[in-house]
């Protein structure tokens, strides 16, 4: 084999290596499974909690600094998208920050909890997801509705759960899905309407909440103990706080985020 042929061969190998390198960069493992349900079933029975001793944690999440002006969404590419729409990545009203997912990140030990039988509802209306941030327990059913006169597709792009992408025409029955593994800020999008984005937070305990428009949250039924409370925002990141609650105590834990995620 002469020199030029070696050069050509080496070039082809380099191209292949580049593609392999790219393959190694693949960010997600989408191989997760349908045996997630089995995993759920294999979990030990829920640990009983004495309802007479449970505590409550509540508070307000603030935004320090000048809130970004929400971008107007141009929905003209689909006449089925009615009304007006704004980006919901940072929703601030009077310094109160909405759409922060608050959950007990640590301190529950080996306690296990049964997923509620009632589904949580994710609605598509005005070409917007309602709610924008959703909390759900692993294995709990998420009922996805389409109240728009146009077709949506629902496409979660998880890191630890199974990825799927299904279309949902108008007036079709609700889709029922669940997520098997704990995952915070799991992005969900609609590829037909690229502005439609929301986040599902899958946790193993029922101790979570999402801040409302006034930045408020409340977590009830918490057994007395020492916990780490995590406040997670899709753009501003995560902040943790240690909290100790006594039996029947109602404790206020406020948090604030600075512009730029500090």
């Amino acid at each position, binding site marked *: 084999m002469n020199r030029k042929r070696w050069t050509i061969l080496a070039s082809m190998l380099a*191209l292949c290596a580049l593609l392999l390198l790219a393959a190694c960069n693949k960010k997600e493992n989408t191989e997760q499974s349908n045996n997630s349900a089995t995993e759920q079933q294999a979990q030990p029975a829920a640990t009983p909690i004495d309802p007479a001793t449970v505590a409550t944690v509540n508070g307000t999440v603030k935004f320090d600094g000048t809130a970004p002006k929400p971008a107007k969404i141009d929905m003209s590419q689909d006449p089925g998208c009615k009304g007006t729409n704004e980006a919901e990545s940072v929703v601030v009203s009077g310094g109160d920050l909405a759409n922060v997912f608050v959950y007990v990140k640590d301190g529950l030990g080996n306690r296990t909890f049964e997923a509620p039988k009632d589904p949580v509802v994710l609605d598509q209306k005005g070409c917007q997801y309602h709610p924008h941030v959703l909390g759900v327990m692993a294995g709990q059913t998420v009922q996805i509705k389409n109240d728009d006169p146009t077709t949506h597709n629902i496409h979660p792009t998880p890191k630890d759960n199974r990825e799927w992408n299904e279309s949902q025409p108008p007036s079709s029955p609700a889709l029922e899905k669940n997520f098997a593994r704990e995952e915070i800020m799991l992005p969900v999008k609609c*590829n037909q309407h690229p502005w439609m984005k929301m986040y599902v937070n899958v946790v193993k305990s029922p101790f979570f909440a999402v801040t409302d428009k006034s930045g408020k949250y409340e977590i009830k039924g918490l057994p007395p103990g020492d916990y780490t409370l995590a406040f997670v925002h899709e753009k501003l990141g995560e902040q943790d706080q240690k909290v100790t609650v006594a039996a029947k105590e109602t404790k206020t834990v406020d948090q604030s985020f600075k512009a730029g995620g500090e």
Partner: protein
Amino acid sequence: MCHLLWPLGAEIALDLCHVPDPRGTTLKAIAATYNRGLHRFAVILACWTFLLIIAGALVTSNDAGLSVPDWPTSFGSLYKIPKLVGGVKFEHTHRMIAQGAGLLTIILAVWMWRAEKRRWLRMLAIAAVGTVIAQGILGGLTVLFFLPAPISSAHAALAQTFFCIAVAMAVFTGRRWIEEVPRVEFDQRRPSLFTLTLLSIFVLYVQLILGAMFRHHGLSWWPHVVHAAVVSFVLAWTAVRALSIYSQIEAIRNSAILMLSLLIAQLCLGFTAFLTRVSWGKDAAQPELPMVISTVTHVAVGALLLATTVVLAIQVWRHVPVAFEERVPQVERNPSAA
């Protein structure tokens, strides 16, 4: 450089190169005749493929790759056209244009098989059919596997490969290629101009993969931007060599000037695309028009640049061969060694 094709048969090497031998006669294996209809059809296929590349770039820039979640059907049907709104407008239009490209390619291959005398060109047309089928399968796989960056990038790279094949077929079936007796000048310089054109194609291909990987979220933007400097250097070197020494050969001069012009345009577009996507559009709530226009144009001009470089390589191969003794394999020069 024709010796690269020698193993494929003397017919291909001689016919493509129109090799003049040292005694002054022109060796030409097949006396091909110009077929205007066939050439026009090949040009239509090349233009259609360019349109398809733009349609594909629109899908990526509008984040509409999975708006039709199934494949090979669209919303469960092989023939029904869904309501073309939102992302479906881009994705399904891309699929329809792609089906048209497949059909045109098959028709061209059948036509060539019946009307074309040059066997290597008939084989190229068959290879084009294979490429378009592979491209369709890659497109399907990228939908079924939720746009994995390696598959989506391979889809983007193969699209431009197919475009180059279509452009090459248009060149090979053209009147000038068939009827012109090429003016040949031997290249004594090292690296030869042909080597430089091959190097240009290689660096462009690497750039294409890096760009596609960035667009499909498989790599950061900086490898593509850094490699743009390498591409600029190699292509400028090639163009300067071609224009400074072989500017009297029209086919080479025109291709080199076009390549250089497209390179400059592409660098400007790349800068604009960087601004609109990476700098300004990083936190955009939806794909914004300036980003879509600049990135789609960047992809389209990139495809033109690659195809022009391939045409330059073909013309250099034809007009500026390396010295004859280097083209003949050792075994041909010294039969006793065989």
